[in-house]
């Protein structure tokens, strides 16, 4: 009885970790796509800054009618276009996060349904190649927490972006990079390594 539930739980965990890995790849690729967009935002921020500093009326371009308004409009429009592209990226990130959350909560549900047959000794038992159920559940939770935290941080930064906040636009690239948590990523890959034997075993 306990053996069979254990096996089915392990099976679910296996698929969970597999999908976690694929999702991680998706996540990283989306993040990679975001980088040039953030760069162009920073560039636009610089342009806007220069535009604010320069008085067109005092420059050699003063003869051109409403150049100031037109250029400003164009720049803001460019920012908006980039922001629109980023919104799509955020949506993809959210999809990844939700997929992971669903997977993890499904694994937890299965554990909780069978909690009566799985006593604490069983779930904390580990071998050389198979981590304990408790370990794996914990890792799943950690991974999920990592993605949630990362998504929330990035979304928070993204939401604060506005075409009129030039200083934020200028620094957005660095900020975006600083949101990543190397220790969290390290932990994720650590987890992947730890479960690799288990996932590949039949």
């Amino acid at each position: 009885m306990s053996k069979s539930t254990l096996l089915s739980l392990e099976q679910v965990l296996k698929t969970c970790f597999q999908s976690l890995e694929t999702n991680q790849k998706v996540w990283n690729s989306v993040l990679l796509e975001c980088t040039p967009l953030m760069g162009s935002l920073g560039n636009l921020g610089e342009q806007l800054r220069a535009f604010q500093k320069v008085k067109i009326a005092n420059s050699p371009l003063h003869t051109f009618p409403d150049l100031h308004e037109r250029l400003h409009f164009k720049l803001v429009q460019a920012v908006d276009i980039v922001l629109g592209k980023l919104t799509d990226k955020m949506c993809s990130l959210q999809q990844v996060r939700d997929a992971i959350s669903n997977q993890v909560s499904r694994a937890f549900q299965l554990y909780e349904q069978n909690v009566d047959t799985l006593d604490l000794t069983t779930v904390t038992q580990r071998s050389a190649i198979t981590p304990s159920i408790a370990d794996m559940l914990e890792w799943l939770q950690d991974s999920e927490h990592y993605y949630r935290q990362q998504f929330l941080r990035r979304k928070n930064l993204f939401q604060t972006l506005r075409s009129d906040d030039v200083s934020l636009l200028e620094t957005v690239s660095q900020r975006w990079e600083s949101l990543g948590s190397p220790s969290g990523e390290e932990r994720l890959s650590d987890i992947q390594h730890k479960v690799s034997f288990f996932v590949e075993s039949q």
Partner: protein
Amino acid sequence: MEVQGFEGTNSGRRTPSAVTGSARKVKDNAADWHNLVLKWDRLNDEGSTIANKIVNLGLSKDSHVNMMMECEETSAPSSSQNAFGNSNELEETCDNLLRVVEKMDHILSKMEKLVSSEQGIINLETFQYGTGGRQIPLFQTWPTSQFAEVSSKLYEAYNQELTLKRAIVQELAHTTNPDLSMVYLSCWLYQPYIDDSVKLLLEGLLLETGHRPS
């Protein structure tokens, strides 16, 4: 999304079209407009890259001058040589940019011809149908005069833009203020005078003449 080059006068007629006469001419003109704008945009991107290069060269020259002032004569010959090479390169790039502007000028003159052609069609219609013009529109809804209007508006916008670009070409290499250079670059890249209404007019023109599937 982009429509890559319509059949126009420039690219020879291979597909026989049902329309003839004024309608034919107007339709061809619309296709020409589209192609000219595409060319212009390509030139603009090209010019933008060159302009960026000029600004970077100018900035490095600036920093060079500053450096020379700081370290007097120790590295004078090499740096002066470098500066010389730099200024040579700068001149070359400026020439490139000038050439781009010349090409744009060429496009503009073609645009002007299109405008005068539209005007000619109106004159023809006035001659044929009197001052009230033709009763049945050439294509769908636009009266003939509107084609001429749109054409001249487009021409005005590009003309203004070209004037701006000429001004930029003249000033770009001489400015020392990095912020101003930046503004020049944004002006070049974002073409402030070619605004959304211009795009809209062009789209309307293409739609009316049946180039775009309605």
